[in-house]
């Protein structure tokens, strides 16, 4: 009646009892925690002040912008530009922290505070 089904059941368990731990051990052994050098160049070369500012304000989704005009709403000013490689132009008047994940301005501060 179901003797064949029982044999198939035992066979399946036996095969998976070997295969599943092999896959698990191979996957765990292959683990490679993300290293800093794996990050894109423009992120790894960020200046210390940008890294400290973004870390203090939330996390990896926070980007730093500069502008000549102040933010009047919770959006970035129209002339805002992304700060790349920690370079803050001399004409920058304000620095803004913008959360990409939430799509909102977290904080604005005078550029002199970070110079």
């Amino acid at each position: 009646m179901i003797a064949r089904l029982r044999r198939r059941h035992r066979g399946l368990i036996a095969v998976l009892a070997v295969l599943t731990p092999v896959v698990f051990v191979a996957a765990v052994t292959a683990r490679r925690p993300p290293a800093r050098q794996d990050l894109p160049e423009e992120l790894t070369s960020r200046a210390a002040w940008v890294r400290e500012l973004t870390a203090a304000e939330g996390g990896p989704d926070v980007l730093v912008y500069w502008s000549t005009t102040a933010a009047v709403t919770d959006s970035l000013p129209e002339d805002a530009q992304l700060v790349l490689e920690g370079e803050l132009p001399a004409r920058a008047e304000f620095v803004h922290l913008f959360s990409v994940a939430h799509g909102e301005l977290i904080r604005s501060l005078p550029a002199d505070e970070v110079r």
Partner: protein
Amino acid sequence: MAHAYQAVGWNPQKKKYDGALLLGVALYLAVFIGSGLAVQPDITAETLVIRGFGSAALLLLHVVLCIGPLARLDRRFLPLLYNRRHMGVTMFFLAFVHGAFSLVQFHAFGDRNPIESLFLSNTNYASLAEFPFQPLGAAALAILFLMAATSHDFWLANLTPPVWKALHMLVYVAYALVVAHVSLGALQAETSPLLIGLMSLGMIAVFGLHWTAGAREVEGDREIDEPPPGTAFVRVATVEEIPDNRAKVVCVGGERVAIYHYDGKISAVSSVCQHQNGPLGEGRIIDGCITCPWHGYQYNPESGSSPPPFDEKVPTFKVQVAEGFVFIDPLPNPPGTPVPPALTGE
């Protein structure tokens, strides 16, 4: 029983079982979300849902898989088996929420169809560390859906128990896919040994329990010797070794036979319940009927037929008692064939 189909044949036990199940899941999610927020206050709600429901489904899958062998090894676990189907469907629901939120979170905001993105955004099959683990989870979810959708007795009866059982054996394939999904996915970024240790323990529990229960069954499946020349009957037990209102299970002709001792009589029927192929020989006589330990399906020990209005039938075997020994004819009668019981003379 299968006299008529209902969406769910509720009874007090099932209500209690499902109540405890839902309470357990709700408690787990509350603790997971609460502790998640305490440890990582900035975590998003979507991430918490993905992790909480995914881990709950993983935990429940282990429980579902361990119940079967545990019930074979220790009868005290039988009540857990009674409504395991609802546990399985709950586990599918949790996995579905995990999958749906993951699909939206990781694939719905690009310029590709989310399903297309799920399967094609990462094709790095040559690397273990960057292996596309999400399609593995999707494949497991598809199997779990198939099982949840066919979990009702309607499908069990129409597909026939052996086909239904074969289909539901895919849960082991789903489990292997889930282990691969988790170890190639979430565990890749995990630095703490805790989750890796827990996952290892889970695998040891699932396969260790199946192995132990299987070994015990192989031992019990040792064939009774062929009948001596000139007689159709084989000696299978002594009357004394079969407890009252219980059975001894023997293996003849490659199949298990339950030899029941009740009211000074001995009867033999197939040990395979017609409902889910449960172990009839591990049940007992209740109200004059053999009662399956899994879901309570009942059969008359002399005819192998369920009491009216139910229509399940199991094969019966001719049986004799002589000088305290029980003999059966290894050739099964068609299901539902009445056979006079052998009197033990007690």
